[in-house]
């Protein structure tokens, strides 16, 4: 029982957007998919759910290929970020029509939950999607994701445009649904620190490569920010996986990703601190990030 993709490559106009991506998503977990703009997050989610074809590679859920397979697709829901610009055709669709289509196609659609969430988010079903704010559009995508009851549910930037209260409502809703059903969620987000508490595993994607798939807590326990006098810091991190060096005069700071059995000695001139998920992400994917070990 798992949701896997093997050797996925996607080429757009001669440019490789995804490069030989292989991934296994276990059931009953909340994954965070994080990456910079253009890293390939939406493309990956689209390919995982057969919304877009891969140039190379395969995707399967519980052993069944996903492409053009209704049985496999019924286990999946990818609630995309809705863009309703002037050129978009879906702008003219009303919220209730959008949800009615979703209810038609998702086999286990929860109508009661739909009504509850419409009330919670104070959404007007008669409004056209094109008349909704960015936050309201996110609410619609959240409703589709939650009410689909799909065993593997993928959300693309679900909190984009939401205010802090609505974001809290979303995380609470997510955890309640997860606790009640054990569904697998994959959440692509830019608001990393806020989501970090609910993400059991984190998938970091950068320039079309999956850099890391790891238990969030285990990751944070092995990442350290080492700072102090430049030469002392350099001596302290010899042989370690070093990222994102920052130099200010004679001082230096680096982020290290420790492997089992490794540690960094704190001395009078070298400070060692734990970091949050956002800092770990920046260390891996920030512009000056580089790998020294």
């Amino acid at each position, binding site marked *: 029982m798992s949701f896997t993709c093997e050797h996925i490559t996607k080429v757009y106009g001669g440019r490789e957007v995804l490069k030989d991506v292989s991934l296994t998503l276990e059931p009953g977990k909340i994954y965070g998919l994080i990456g910079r703009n253009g890293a390939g997050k939406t493309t990956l989610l*689209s390919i995982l*759910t*057969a*919304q*877009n*074809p891969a140039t190379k590679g395969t995707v399967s859920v519980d052993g069944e290929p996903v492409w*053009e*397979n*209704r049985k496999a*697709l*019924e286990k*999946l*829901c*990818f609630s*995309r970020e*809705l*863009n309703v610009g002037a050129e*978009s*055709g*879906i702008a*003219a*669709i009303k919220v209730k029509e*959008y949800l009615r*289509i*979703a209810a*038609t*196609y*998702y*086999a286990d659609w929860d109508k009661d939950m739909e009504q509850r969430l419409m009330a919670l988010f104070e959404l007007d079903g008669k409004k056209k999607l094109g008349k909704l704010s960015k936050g309201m559009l996110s609410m619609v995508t959240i409703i589709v994701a939650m009410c689909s009851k*799909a065993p593997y549910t993928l959300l693309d930037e679900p909190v984009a445009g939401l205010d802090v209260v609505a974001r809290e409502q979303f995380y609470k809703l997510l955890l309640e649904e997860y606790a009640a059903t054990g569904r697998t969620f994959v959440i692509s987000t830019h608001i990393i620190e806020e989501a970090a508490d609910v993400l059991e595993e984190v998938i970091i994607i950068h320039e079309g490569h999956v850099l890391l798939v790891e238990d969030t807590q285990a990751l944070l326990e092995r990442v350290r920010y080492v700072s102090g006098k430049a030469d002392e810091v350099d001596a302290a991190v010899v042989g370690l996986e070093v990222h994102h060096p920052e130099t200010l005069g004679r001082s230096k700071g680096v982020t290290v990703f420790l492997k089992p059995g490794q540690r960094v000695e704190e001395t009078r001139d070298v400070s060692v601190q734990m970091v949050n998920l956002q800092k770990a992400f920046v260390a891996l994917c920030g512009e000056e990030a580089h790998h020294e070990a």
Partner: protein
Amino acid sequence: MKRNLRFWTRYTWEGMPAVLIVLAILLVLSAIGASRLELTALAATAPAYLLLAAGLTIVMLNYGTQVVYIPLLISMGETRRNIFLGYHFHRILIIAVAVGISALIWALVPGEISRLGLSNIPSILAILVAASSLGSIMGTIYFKWKWVATVLLVVVFGTFGGVGGFSVAGGGEDVAQLVEKAAQFLAEFPWWLALVAVVALGADAAFQWLLLRKQEVRL
């Protein structure tokens, strides 16, 4: 597939007001252009306009289907194969409803036009299939390559419009008389019409599938 058919049936049903609006416009235009307004004659020719309205509606709905609904259904987890089948089911349903209502009216309204209309049903079906297939191809071309479609539309409809207008002006006949004349010609189902319908349907199906089979969702 059951859920897919449910969607397309409802989509077709929701498209019916568009058919009625187009029909009303055509009837008003016909009444304005006619030299006499006789209720029985109008009732007998109305089905012809209904069929024309159905054909035009299929073409009009095609754009929205391509731009909005097909990507939306893919994003809701439907397969491209089922969407392809559903899309054709939707077109057949509109044609079937329009032909069914037309046949019923012709069966109920006495007169020569009704008799001709009933004898024309095979030809009408073939014309609707051919016209809606060509319309579907045009609509898709417009969706994918707007400027090419605009040129094609101007050429095709300009030619038909010019020829039609010239015939009407030259013959001194109104639209109802032309419909009657055409009905007489088509009463004996010409074999080439069936061929045209089959070729147009096949071309449309092949064209749609080629585009749909690898379609990407960008909502």
